[in-house]
């Protein structure tokens, strides 16, 4: 079966400091990978998605970047955090081809980021 791991679970960082959130998926190959953000009291917003190593698509302009150095590893980064970057960040994955199971996205447990 497939599993997704995301860390750290919580993070408190000062404004201007760097950020690195990491996500790995096990039990499948060539997954589509996603980073979502959930601001307090709001729905989820897709930040980035990736269909393969080194292939990153950005959905919204922002202070963040994403990288996929390995097939099942997805990293969310920032060089200098802003207060507005605070939120709940969720990594997710889906099978590479749409189908009865392929169009379902499976989420990790999330990472709480507080920028102070």
């Amino acid at each position, binding site marked *: 079966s497939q599993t997704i791991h995301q860390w750290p679970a919580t993070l408190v960082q000062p404004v201007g400091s760097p950020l690195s959130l990491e996500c790995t998926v096990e039990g499948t190959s060539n997954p589509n990978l996603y980073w979502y953000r959930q601001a307090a009291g709001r*729905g989820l917003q897709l930040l980035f998605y990736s269909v393969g190593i080194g292939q990153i698509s950005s959905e919204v302009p922002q202070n963040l970047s994403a990288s996929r150095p390995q097939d099942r590893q997805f990293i969310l980064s920032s060089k200098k955090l802003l207060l507005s970057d605070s939120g709940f960040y969720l990594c997710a994955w889906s099978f590479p081809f749409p189908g009865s199971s392929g*169009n379902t*996205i499976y989420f990790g447990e999330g990472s709480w980021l507080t920028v102070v």
Partner: protein
Amino acid sequence: AQSVTQLDSHVSVSEGTPVLLRCNYSSSYSPSLFWYVQHPNKGLQLLLKYTSAATLVKGINGFEAEFKKSETSFHLTKPSAHMSDAAEYFCVVSDRPQGAQKLVFGQGTRLTINP
């Protein structure tokens, strides 16, 4: 463009009574629809999904949803609420560009269960 509207931001029911969480969607083609549940400080768990098979979809924990194309609705129901059902629920529609899924989320409905 696809969109999802969850008609209630907060629903409160008594334990043992029915649950109804309402969702309307807008899609230019036959959509895939999902309900996810999020317990406090946790990730999202898939409750059920509709992918153009049976219009009545059964999910985990006794939840089910009915896809009604004429009403563009996908309401979530459960016959009898449990205290453990207290959580945030998201109705989601899938935009399927080539190679990846883009989910469009509703704003969520917070379900409170009263003893």
